């Protein structure tokens, strides 16, 4: 029996521009504006000319005074260039609910509403869903004392605005962004949550550039320079202020810290290719090939702060390395040694670093020299926040290495599992599907539930890497650093602003396989597509099926927990944030009894 097929034109990269109303005239006008006027158009490929990038990957947005452009903690794949007016970025937290809205946003539901929906089902239209989200959000707004918010516009164009701009500005530390300046690019480039809230102080004209366009624009040195300058002048301050240790440092001292801070990158942004090549190497070879950030036994030259990505904290053990932890965003390395050395005074021999730090994949780090830390950071940290001096150092200059047993915290994870997580890069997952094989009866209720939620085809497989009783199933982990997004030419694979979940927009996915090939965990599959009548879509040019990427979406179209987890009758399946090593450790130990 042959399946009926329908021939269509194969989708193309810019079939779905960011703004369908953007014209060539507008793009030409933009080319005359700073910084595009300084850019060398010859550096761009013919099929992705600068004008095409601006025409398809950007859009003009007119903000009214008070409009919030984005909020701290939201995920976003766009940067913003101010063309007119003034934008303010809030250096202190504007809305107390900002961070909380992230992961919990999609989980809100309870039995009562579930039962009510079951007994009195109602068709939830897009508008109603949006409205209910707004109501939900409005409830949160009430908690933001002193900051009154309002809503204007309808549907997708709904904007949240600050009711009393002068009042809010006077009570918060802010920074101004003027025409020609770019903001929001770090979150877009590093695929991390926004580090600040941005709002329009006056009526503004802003150019939103999505990540795919930004990536192409970065080919131009002038544009790259703009990004670097912008980071050092503004974002770094916000970032340091966000770090608890730097909270009480006076401004003049923080200026000194900023001036001395070095921005460094280790590893490759597209690390998955190297990872796949090295998958069959010995663990010791793999670790040795990881870019070394700082080595144990070497002079403690400064403080390292992880800005993005993950780093492996390890110690030499025998001929290999023993992983002690993986450090993520905001975590530091070298502080213990610096505090120890400072407390012992200048006469004592300083301690070298006691552990090694290596980049797992790609890591963005800040490095602050020792002298600056001693002079401008440590004096302003409360004693209770400082780590205790190292009682029995493993490395001391001029003395043999003390190869004592490694001390592990009471609730630390089993070292083998920790090594496994890092080796398999599983610590990247924010919603990793963890199956306890000593509880799982292999009934496949989870797979069936997934199929029910996704039109009859499950979007995960109940198999995958296994460590002891723990199986890490092949389901999208909604990574902390979703490398699958790097190569997507259309932005079809993106992060949800509120929940941070990695989603695929079916209408703009052109089936290029870039995401599936770059996912280091093989959690994205290419599937054939069908039209509304159930006919398979094939390319009119060659008759080949039109493919689309398919992966777990955490059942975000429905309320409640993902169906796989709900359907497990034996509580054997859980979705867990692997970046939170403590919760993973607690879960594993609790289940192990």
């Amino acid at each position: 029996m042959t399946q009926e097929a329908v021939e269509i034109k194969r989708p193309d990269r810019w079939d779905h521009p960011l703004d369908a109303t953007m014209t060539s005239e507008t793009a030409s006008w933009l080319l005359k504006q700073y910084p595009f006027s300084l850019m060398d158009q010859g550096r761009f490929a013919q099929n992705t000319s600068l004008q095409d990038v601006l025409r398809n990957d950007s859009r003009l947005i007119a903000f009214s005074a008070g409009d919030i452009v984005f909020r701290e903690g939201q995920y976003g794949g766009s940067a913003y260039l101010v063309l007119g007016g003034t934008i303010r970025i809030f250096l202190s937290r504007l809305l107390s609910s900002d961070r909380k809205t992230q992961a919990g946003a999609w989980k809100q539901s309870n039995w009562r509403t579930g039962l009510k929906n079951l007994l009195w089902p109602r068709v939830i239209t897009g508008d109603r869903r949006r409205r209910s989200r707004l109501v939900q959000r409005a409830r949160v707004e009430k908690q933001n004392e002193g900051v009154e918010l309002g809503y204007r516009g309808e549907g997708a164009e709904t904007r949240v605005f600050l009711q009393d701009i002068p009042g809010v500005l006077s009570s918060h530390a802010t920074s101004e962004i003027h025409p020609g300046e770019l903001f929001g690019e770090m979150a877009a480039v590093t695929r991390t949550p926004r580090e600040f809230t941005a709002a329009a102080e006056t009526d503004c004209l802003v150019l939103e550039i999505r990540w795919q366009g930004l990536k192409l624009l970065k080919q131009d040195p002038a544009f790259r320079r703009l990004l670097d300058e912008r980071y050092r002048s503004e974002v770094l301050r916000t970032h340091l202020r966000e770090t608890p240790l730097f909270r009480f440092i006076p401004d003049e001292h923080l200026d000194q810290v900023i001036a001395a801070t070095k921005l460094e990158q280790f590893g490759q942004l597209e690390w998955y290719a190297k990872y796949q090549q090295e998958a069959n190497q010995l663990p010791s070879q793999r670790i040795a090939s990881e870019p070394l950030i700082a080595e144990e036994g070497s002079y403690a030259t400064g403080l390292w702060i992880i800005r993005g990505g993950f780093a492996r904290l390890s110690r030499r053990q025998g001929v290999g390395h023993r992983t002690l932890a993986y450090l993520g965003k905001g975590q530091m390395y070298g502080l213990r040694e610096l505090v120890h050395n400072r407390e012992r005074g200048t006469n004592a021999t300083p301690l070298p670093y006691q552990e090694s730090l290596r980049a797992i994949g790609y890591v963005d780090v800040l490095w602050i020299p020792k002298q600056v830390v001693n002079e401008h950071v440590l004096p302003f940290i409360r004693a209770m926040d400082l780590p205790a001096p190292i009682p029995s150092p493993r490395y001391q200059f001029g003395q043999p290495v003390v190869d004592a047993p490694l001390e592990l915290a009471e609730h630390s994870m089993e070292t083998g599992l920790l090594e496994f997580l890092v080796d398999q890069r599983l610590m990247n997952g924010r919603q990793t599907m963890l199956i306890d094989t000593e509880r799982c009866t292999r009934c496949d209720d989870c797979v069936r539930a997934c199929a029910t939620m996704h039109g009859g085809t499950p979007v995960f497989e109940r198999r995958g890497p296994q460590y002891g009783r723990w199986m890490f199933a092949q389901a999208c982990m909604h990574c902390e650093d979703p490398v699958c997004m790097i190569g997507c030419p259309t932005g079809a694979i993106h992060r949800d602003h509120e929940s941070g979940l990695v989603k695929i927009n079916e209408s703009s996915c052109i089936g290029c396989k870039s995401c599936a090939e770059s996912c280091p965990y093989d959690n994205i599959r290419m599937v054939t597509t069908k039209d509304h009548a159930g006919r398979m879509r094939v390319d009119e040019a060659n008759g080949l099926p039109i493919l689309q990427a398919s992966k777990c979406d955490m059942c975000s179209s429905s309320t409640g927990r993902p169906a796989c987890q709900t359907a497990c009758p034996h509580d054997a399946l859980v979705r867990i944030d692997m970046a939170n090593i403590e919760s993973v450790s607690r879960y594993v130990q609790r289940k192990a009894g």
Partner: protein
Amino acid sequence: MLFHKRLMAATVTLCAVVATVFAVDWTRRRLGDESTLTGWTLLIATGGLYLLTVRKRLIRHPLGPVSFWLQMHIYMGTFASIIFLMHIGWPVRGLFESLLAACFAIVAGSGILLGFLSRSTPRKLAAIERDFPLERIPVLQSAVARDAHQIALDSSNFGEGATLAEFYQRRLLPFFQLPRSLPYRLIPNGVKRRLLLRELNDLDRYLAQQGIASRQALVAMVKAKDDLDYHQALQFRLRLMVAFHISLTWTLALMIGVHVVLVYRFSGAL
């Protein structure tokens, strides 16, 4: 936390049983019809057991995790079983009533067995180094059988005689090519595996270096095939039990319906 939850559920079940016992006693002392009371209680409790199936079908709705409903199913099943013993007279009279009682007892028994298997089987499966999805096992078995066949064929070219090939043909070919026996499928064990491995080891005295290497490869194949068979048998047994339990519950539902009609028909209510 889990212990407290279970303790509470067990207490509620016990309270329900005690309340029913008191209600039956109270009815008996008032010369009422205690079998009607226990019958309707049993009917409601048995109806409650079907809620698990309903919950599984309504997976789109946020009605709590299925694991919670399974726990409810277990406690309600325990309650229903106790009420069932209170409801039936002894000896059970009538062919249909005997069949109904037997059906209920088998469903309850298969439920208990299923509960035991659901606990013990995952541990046995997890003891094997790799996990195999049931639907992929036949493919993997074929691949192992193919590899073993090739090793046996190649071994005859090493100039060490046909020792391994002959042993393969006589002892290993049926093991690799044929499905395992029904007793093994019901109670999987390592008897065959140990026997074959011992026999294979005994061949070493007739083999040279190359032959020993082939023998070791065959040992690995036997282990791989046995692991697959073991996984298949355990998973198959569990699924068979689930299917048996569920199919009997529908038979039971039908018989209960007929029983209620008969009772009221013969009591003159219908």
